[in-house]
């Protein structure tokens, strides 16, 4: 039954791929119906894992494997797996995807390639569901690459925009750098353990026998083989999940339509990397809970969390801010995995999926409402025009910042801080994460002030989005709140669910010393972040309001519109434009511009990797042209020279000799032929001379 979960969307994608451009309604209906069906199936699968009893202290797993290839005497199998780790994830992925699909009907209404869009969406979701349900690293890799393909197609969906096409290529290639690591890790695992199935009645690569085997062997660089494999696989995860230094594609990926950004940042793609590490966690921790691999994951995660949060502070594109916040939150998840808590990471992953989908769809609604404007400096005051979007967005924002008690983000982030605090290796990641949490609250407050606070600074008339877009927002907002229930430490339901332990409701955990310290700290952090954010950015609204207090809004826009229509520059542009200097920029101009330029990582890539590739390409072409072909030309020239020499030899050596021989013969012949003149007296003269000579010789011989 679980095989249908990815297959249904895949079939829907296949069928819609063959549909004509005009068949919009059938395509959308088919894709949404297939997605709804797999959501229902996911729910059933999820319920099934709830009812399953734990076996031997381990969670219940159901899987089936089937042969795919047999080469030589060996069979390479693929398989599907259902266990608590995957079941929660699969439900989230299919449900969030479904909501995004429904939302897309409204968002993409005007697009000419509507049918194709739904085809790609369905492929995306199918591939992601495949990653989640796979019981074989090979099948994971296959689906993983298909996720990459679908993201490539969707990021570059508006292919006529050169930026979109470039962003799509960048996403595919950046993640492919990581995927090469993944591929090598997979090959290594296969050659070391002889199987790529995760669970196979004791013979799988995540089961004890194989783990012991790869943990005890040592590779040439002194690391355990399991750690090498884990690090290589982490390269792939870092690529997909946008960890530093492979995060550069993710902010650019917002060139795609907004539902795609929501899908990439919440349900699919970036979640794949975190999920992969969670799935392969037994290999990462094969040499203990502070293995080299896990330590690396933790440091990369903590660094990414802080680094991306810093950059987000100085961005002005509504989606780019959210994109960096995703990178940062993924860093949190990786940190949680690195310090050894799969549950904390997964809870945050799922909670984040809901509120990040909510934020992106909300941002889409905003962009839609202000007619494809994305710069937050040209927004403002939208809470009046878009009340539903505002309320749901505010819920998403509070969940992301981790506002206490009623929002899922608080509990899940708190848990990560908690586990990071207990990490025996170092406390630094904990402080980095805390700083990132503070920055998160700060930049989200900044964004809220710019977008919804103050008064409107744009030109087009803002409007609320249709119900097909706002209803998914409402549902996601509800989920962002409700997800806090199973995430509280009072009822660590997820923990029990993932590990198979029995968990009872115990409010006493809420007042444990440990928890209180961290919770208290995170409340302080959030309050500080939001407080400072308000302090700095509250004035943006007031200033611009003050400037334009005398002008009622309607008049302003109609003027603006009429001016734009007339094709003249709008005189309101300047007075209306957002304060061109960000308050933070006034305070720290140097830092702000470095952050606004994304700390020059892209420039660094351009200067190193991109240039190196180009140079190597030119070098190869040059070698080909001048050295390899040069040798050939040299050989050619030498053989020409040789043939010229032999020609000379022919002409002046052999030919000359031959000619002179021939000439000699000819001359000789002429001489001889002249003798044969036909005159008898001549012959007689020769004859008599000959006879006399003969006689003389004979006489001389006889004497």
């Amino acid at each position, binding site marked *: 039954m679980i095989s249908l979960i990815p297959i249904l969307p895949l079939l829907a994608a296949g069928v819609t791929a063959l549909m004509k451009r005009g068949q919009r309604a059938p395509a959308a209906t088919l894709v949404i119906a297939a997605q709804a069906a797999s959501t229902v199936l996911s729910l059933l699968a999820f319920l099934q894992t709830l009812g399953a009893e734990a076996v031997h202290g381990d969670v219940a797993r159901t899987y089936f494997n089937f042969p795919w*290839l047999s080469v030589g005497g060996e069979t390479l199998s693929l398989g599907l797996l259902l266990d608590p780790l995957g079941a929660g994830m699969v439900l989230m992925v299919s449900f969030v995807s479904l909501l995004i699909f429904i939302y897309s009907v409204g968002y993409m209404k005007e697009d000419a390639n509507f049918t194709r869009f739904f085809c790609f969406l369905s492929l995306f979701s199918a591939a992601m569901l495949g990653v989640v349900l796979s019981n074989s690293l090979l099948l994971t890799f296959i689906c993983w690459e298909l996720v990459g393909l679908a993201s490539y197609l969707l990021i570059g969906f508006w*292919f006529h925009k050169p930026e979109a096409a470039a962003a799509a290529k960048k996403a595919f290639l950046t993640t492919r750098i990581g995927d090469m690591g993944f591929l090598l890790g997979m090959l290594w695992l296969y050659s070391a353990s002889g199987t790529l199935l995760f669970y196979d009645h004791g013979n799988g690569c995540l089961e004890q026998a194989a783990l012991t085997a790869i943990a005890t062997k040592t590779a040439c660089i002194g690391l355990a083989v399991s750690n090498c494999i884990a690090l290589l696989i982490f390269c792939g995860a870092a690529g997909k999940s946008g960890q530093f230094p492979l995060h550069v594609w993710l902010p650019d990926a917002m060139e795609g339509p907004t539902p795609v950004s929501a899908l990439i940042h919440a349900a699919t793609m970036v979640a794949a990397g975190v999920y992969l590490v969670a799935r392969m966690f037994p290999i990462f921790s094969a040499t203990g809970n502070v293995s080299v691999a896990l330590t690396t994951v933790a440091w990369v995660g903590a660094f990414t969390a802080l680094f991306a949060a810093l950059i987000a502070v100085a961005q002005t594109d509504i989606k780019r801010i959210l994109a960096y916040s995703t990178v940062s939150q993924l860093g949190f998840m990786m940190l949680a995995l690195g310090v050894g808590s799969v549950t904390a990471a997964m809870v945050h992953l799922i909670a984040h999926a809901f509120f990040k989908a909510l934020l992106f769809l909300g941002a889409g609604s905003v962009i839609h409402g202000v007619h494809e404007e994305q710069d937050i400096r040209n927004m403002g005051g939208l809470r009046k025009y878009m009340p539903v979007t505002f309320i749901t967005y505010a819920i998403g924002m509070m969940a992301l910042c981790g506002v206490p008690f009623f929002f899922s983000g608080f509990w899940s982030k708190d848990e990560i801080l908690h586990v990071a605090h207990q990490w025996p290796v170092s406390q630094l990641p904990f402080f980095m994460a805390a700083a990132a949490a503070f920055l998160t609250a700060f930049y989200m407050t900044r964004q809220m002030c710019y977008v919804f606070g103050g008064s409107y600074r744009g030109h087009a008339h803002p409007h609320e989005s249709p119900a097909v877009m706002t209803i998914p927002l409402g549902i996601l907002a509800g989920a962002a709140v409700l997800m806090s229930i199973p995430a509280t430490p009072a009822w660590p339901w997820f923990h029990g669910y993932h590990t198979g332990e029995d968990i009872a409701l115990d409010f006493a955990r809420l007042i444990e010393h440990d928890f209180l310290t961290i919770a208290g700290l995170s409340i302080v952090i959030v309050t500080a972040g939001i407080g400072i954010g308000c302090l700095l950015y509250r004035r943006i609204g007031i200033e611009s309001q003050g400037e334009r207090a005398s002008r009622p809004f309607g008049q302003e826009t109609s003027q603006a519109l009429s001016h734009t229509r007339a094709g003249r520059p709008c005189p309101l542009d300047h007075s209306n434009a957002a304060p061109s200097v960000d308050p933070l920029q006034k305070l720290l101009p140097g830092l702000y511009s470095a952050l606004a330029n994304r700390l020059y990582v892209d420039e660094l890539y351009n200067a190193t990797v991109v240039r190196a*590739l180009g140079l190597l390409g030119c070098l190869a*072409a040059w070698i080909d042209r001048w050295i390899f072909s040069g040798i050939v030309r040299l050989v050619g020239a030498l053989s020409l020279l040789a043939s010229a020499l032999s020609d000379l030899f022919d002409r002046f050596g052999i030919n000359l000799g031959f000619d002179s021989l021939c000439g000699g013969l000819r001359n000789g012949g002429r001489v001889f032929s002249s003798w044969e003149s036909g005159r008898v007296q001549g012959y007689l003269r020769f004859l008599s001379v000959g006879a006399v000579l003969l006689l003389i010789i004979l006489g001389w011989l006889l004497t």
Partner: protein
Amino acid sequence: MTLLTLIPFVGALLVALLPSHRAARMSGLVLMAGVLGLTISLALGYDRAAGGIQFIERHAWIPSLGVDYFVGTDGMSLMLLLLTAIITPFALLSAGPGISRLQVVLILLLETALIGTFTALNFIHWFVFYELSLVPAFLLIRSAGTKESTTAALRFFIYTLLGGLAMLIGFLAIQIAAGTFDLIKLGEMGASLDSKLAAAFGWPSAGLLVFCCIFLGLAVKVPVVPFHTWLPDAYSEAPSPVTMLLTGLMSKMGVYGFLRLLVPLFPQRMQELAAPLLWLALATIIFSAFAALAQTDLKRIFAYSSVNHLGYCLLGIFAVAAVPMGAPAARAAATNGVLLQIFNHGLTAAALFCFVGFLERRSGGLRGMAGFGGLRAAAPVFAGLMGIAIFSSLGLPGLNGFVGEFLIFSGTFKLVWWSAALAAIGLFVTAVFLLNIIQKVFTGPLPERWSKFPDLTSAEILTVAPAIALMFVLGIYPQVLIVLFNKP
């Protein structure tokens, strides 16, 4: 078996007598369909449980020299016959109705030579067909009619002829030492062949020299960097349908030669020289990928990309040769991967050049990347189908290219891990230049001059549809082809 060789040959002679090029094209197609049907029935009739060489026919030809007419097929050559039978009509169709009678005749003759090469089991018999293929290929490259194509054809001819000559000398030496041209018998001698050569010529390195001669001949044909310089010119100056045959089929003669001649005859030399050979394969993979990155002409990019893809075949072959004992699973994976890759590359590269041909027909011969842009807006079907072929070439899972490469890499990694790790660089660079093509040709704003760019006609769609369908079939269920040559 003999019938299979005769159909295109006799057909070519008859087609030459036909009055119009249209009739020639039709009858050419019918003949090729006959070959395809016969090949499929052979493949179905091949007893896979028994394996080995079947459908043997043997007649004495020049008994005094040990030259026999000796044909037969095993799974590997059946796979190549299938590929030949599929790609030849594909190329003919892709040329469109404008193809001349002479070209049809030459393509049929080339098919004859290919079938002869893939079925021959006596060296001289093999060599005759191997060299025979050069003549129609030479004339076909020249049929583009440009000055450059004449130069390229000449260069192609001289290169491969010299390579062939080296190979012939090598085999004459073998005949003197071992007294036979029979490839099967020679293969059974294996290691002792080397000592026989040493004894016959009184020089211990005689075997090495003979090995190098044969290697040189095959290396030019595949080609192996640095013996590849004939290729970019030949592939780019020949008309696209001809390039489809060159890359799809003729390059496979070289790889086939490695598997049929060099590996069975010189197992020890292969093992001794494994490290330099692997480095050559890596140089082929990485160098050609970077060289492709620097090209702007679509045909030259795909030409270098072909070299790159065949590099993976060599990598697998050499890795297997490097470790002749043990690790049966890895050896089987690499070997099957190589054979799959041969088929997949033939299919995908032919499809790519077919698309370039369609593009040239629309652009009046223009094929520089910079001249295009945004074509997806004007020709979505074209962009979609060519996109599938490009992703197949890139090795996307779900399409054919992935399976062969995965098997090669998984086998090679177990056998010689460092070479697989280094070859992964090639995989990445391949993705870079292939996505560059999509970006520059199909995306971005549509320039004014291409706003009327016509999409594929239904005839063109039908031409490429079988190839695209095969890409999916082999990507999802490769076992359908693997059963032909897998030795359980």
